């Protein structure tokens, strides 16, 4: 009896699905991050800078990403920075920032900077480790600079140190020009 109970449904499934002519539907890729935006503010009007990395089809597609820097950083300033993550393939766009904030204990933003820029953390998770959604960017002198932002997914291995264990969910690099203050 047990055998027939196990195999009969399999047989039925095998024969009926063999005739299945349903066409597949396009996949709405979940978990996709298309856009990383860094909003930098000094508190002064007209001094705001927006860095944006837009990858229309995420990691699996072949479309090249678009990197834009709107505005210029100025030497001798301290910027309050906020990171926003979006999945813009859905309408309305899905807010991934909230997902990361909810799983703050498993995530860490790492910042690798060239000279002239230092980044410090202004937020922490439930165990006092940094997250990196909110940071302060201190800009010293004028010149060229680069900032690489990595979002590390560190389920169970987060120590607060960079890069630490885990996988990289995001890795983007911005080439910046710092103007004389």
């Amino acid at each position: 009896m047990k055998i027939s109970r196990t195999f009969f449904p399999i047989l039925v499934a095998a024969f009926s699905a063999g005739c299945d002519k349903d066409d597949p539907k396009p996949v709405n890729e979940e978990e996709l991050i298309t856009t990383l935006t860094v909003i930098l503010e000094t508190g002064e009007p007209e001094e705001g800078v927006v860095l944006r990395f837009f990858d229309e089809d995420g990691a699996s597609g072949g479309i090249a990403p678009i990197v834009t820097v709107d505005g210029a950083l100025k030497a001798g300033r301290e910027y309050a920075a906020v990171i926003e993550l979006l999945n813009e393939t859905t309408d309305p766009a899905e807010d991934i920032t909230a997902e990361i904030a909810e799983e703050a204990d498993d995530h860490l933003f790492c910042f690798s900077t060239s000279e002239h820029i230092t980044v410090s953390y202004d937020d922490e998770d439930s165990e006092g480790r940094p997250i990196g959604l909110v940071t302060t960017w201190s800009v010293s002198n004028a010149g060229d600079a680069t900032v690489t932002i990595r979002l590390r997914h560190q389920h169970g291995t987060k120590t607060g140190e960079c890069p630490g264990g885990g996988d990289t969910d995001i890795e983007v690099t911005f080439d910046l020009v710092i103007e004389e203050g």
Partner: protein
Amino acid sequence: MGKPILLILFLALAGVANGQVCSEYLHGRISDETGQPLPQAVIQIEPSSYRSISDVNGRFSFSSLCPGEYSLTVTYMGYESASRQVRIPLSEEVIITLQPSRTVLKDVVIEAGVGGRSVTQTSVSLETEDLEGLHGKPLGESLKEIPGVSALQTGPSIFKPVIDGLHSQRILILNNGIRQEGQQWGLEHAPEIDPFIASRIEVLKGAEAVRYGSAAMGGVIIIQPPPLHETEKTGGEINTGFMSNNRMGILSVMVEGTFAPQSPWSWRLQGSSRKGGDYHAPSYNLSNTGLEEFNFSGALGFEDDRRGFEVYASTFNTEIGILRAAHTGNLSDLEESIESGRPWYVEDFTFDIGHPKQRTHHHLLKLSAHQHFPGVGRVSVLYGGQFDVRREYDIRRADRAGRPSVSLNLISHVLDVSLDHERPAHTGSLGINVSTKSNTNDTEVTGVRPLLPDYRQLSAGVFFHEKIRRNKWTFEAGARYDFQYLQVLTFERNQLIKPTFNFNYLSGTLGASILFNPRLRLSSNLGMTSRPPHVSELYSEGLHHGTASIEEGLMRREGEVITDQSSIDLEFSRKWVNSLQYTAERITADFSVYYNAIDNYVFIHPVGTRQTIRGYFPVLQYDQTDVVLAGSDLAVKADIGKRWSVNTKISYVYAKDILNDDVVISIPPAQWDNGITYRPGSIGKLNECFIGVSVPITFRQHRAPRVVAPQDIDEGNSGKIFDFTQAPPGYTLLNVRAGFKLPIGDHTLGVALSGENLLNTSYRNYMNRLRYFADDIGSNFILRLSYNFLSH
């Protein structure tokens, strides 16, 4: 069963158990189907370790037997082995007729069988030990015992067989007569087969594509359960095992019997299960490499002189953890893993299987029937329905952790009809194979764009194959025509497209073999095979989470989808194999040399990187080129005195990309195995005692691609192929095995203890994909118990 027989049996077995001397005599004759005597056939009588070899008139005899039930097994090169039950005392002569083997010209056949039935090897008991000594190991790892067969590995539990350098879509597995239609398209996809069902595993390394189709271009692996009609009683076998390295427990139970004495109906039920935790390398735990497996099968058969019928159903279910540290996010992660030299994620031992992991199910229903028509031959009809499920679970964000990133269902139907005829001077067969496949992705479940698209496939082939014998010579010829219809359902910028193809292609084989004397045979075989690329080779696209790389099929280039059939080149192989087999009482040797030229050989290799929001990823592309594979396999086994035996096996394959004057990626390195076994026979009540040492030597792959570290890859890396690291250095391991059989009443308990990698050597294998991240496993002790029983 009557009381007198029971009494005789009891006395007989008591006699055997006490080593008492008996005086019964058994004699017989071995002939082929034309009545010609067969000299030099090996006759094994069980339960006892006696062997006899037939004389020039095909006659053999055994003396000093005790009364009781015995089974005779006859093996003879080029013929199917045969078994016969006898009850002693028996005054008349036992006449055993052997049927020619269907694959007499198969180039090198090395078999290992629980029943000890073997065509080319006479060291029957060693063969039995070989397979018993592999209980609990996956199929692909077990096959590595055969010279010329290696495995493409992903960690300690996933092994894909490689025959003479070819693997994946070019290897056909016949599981109980059915062409296995599993999900073998990825490098981390092992065949979905429980080796416990097999009493015999055979590897055909020649061009067997005529009978089996283009999937057999590289060779055929035949998994054969014992025949259903061997036993007249209810009996069975229980196997258990325990492995120290990953604390794995293994259990297998088999029960078989007939419904009544002399009934043509018989049945078998079999189940097996394995559960293990993390493996460990000599200096760290390989976290998340646990596994769980549950398999079950049942068979019911009818067999009389003229016809036979069988129903067989099996289910294979497994869940395997993938080394956590092998899951890298992007190119920077891969680079860090390679540079650090040890896995970044090492936790304490656990039985829990976390993510990433894969879960696979394979369900099979087989119906087969054959009928003998006098003067015509034997007509066989075989149907196989297979249902495959593959789910791969990745590290995912938010509440998606429980959802797979790959979820594939493959349904296939296979129908084979063949007519085999046997005349004194020639034998042959002609037949037709039809199969359908339908592959679907559950994208609503995964929420991930599928790597392998949905597809529907219909294939049909007709073949004939004829063999003529003239004295010492056998000639063979065969041809096959195949048709394949393939419809792929994929997307180009979210628009469904349905590229459709029709392939027509031919295969053929020619061969000859000469038997210089009953001990020495030389065979030569030339085979030509065409193969349309598999869907995965044509249309894979996307981020393969398991390998942290972007894969692109032949028909996808820079975001464009090619749908034109004229852009597809069929793989075309010409393989020439020559083999020399020497089989004597004390020594057996198999030597083969092959040359295989393949046009439009499909392979996957890293070509560059792609920038995405997750960082840079290596892009692996399928490509085609012309290659040559040439190699040689040697196996020698010799008995020294009555108690010692030695064996050696050497395999080497040389591969060259002749179009680009380059090496070929993922070709197994040279392998040299040596072993020595001491068999003192019986010690007190313990029978078949043995202790053996084996020393497998794996050489470095000197013809590995040049090295380009992940951080140095850029789009300009065209030209010669490359890999991310050097091929690992060669290594030598030390393995020891010992065991005995203990009679308990009329049952038998077998005990075997083995130690693998006894010196706890740290090593990495070129053919193991996890070599970028971690060492292979350290020392492993395995205790195996087997219990044979018959009930009355």
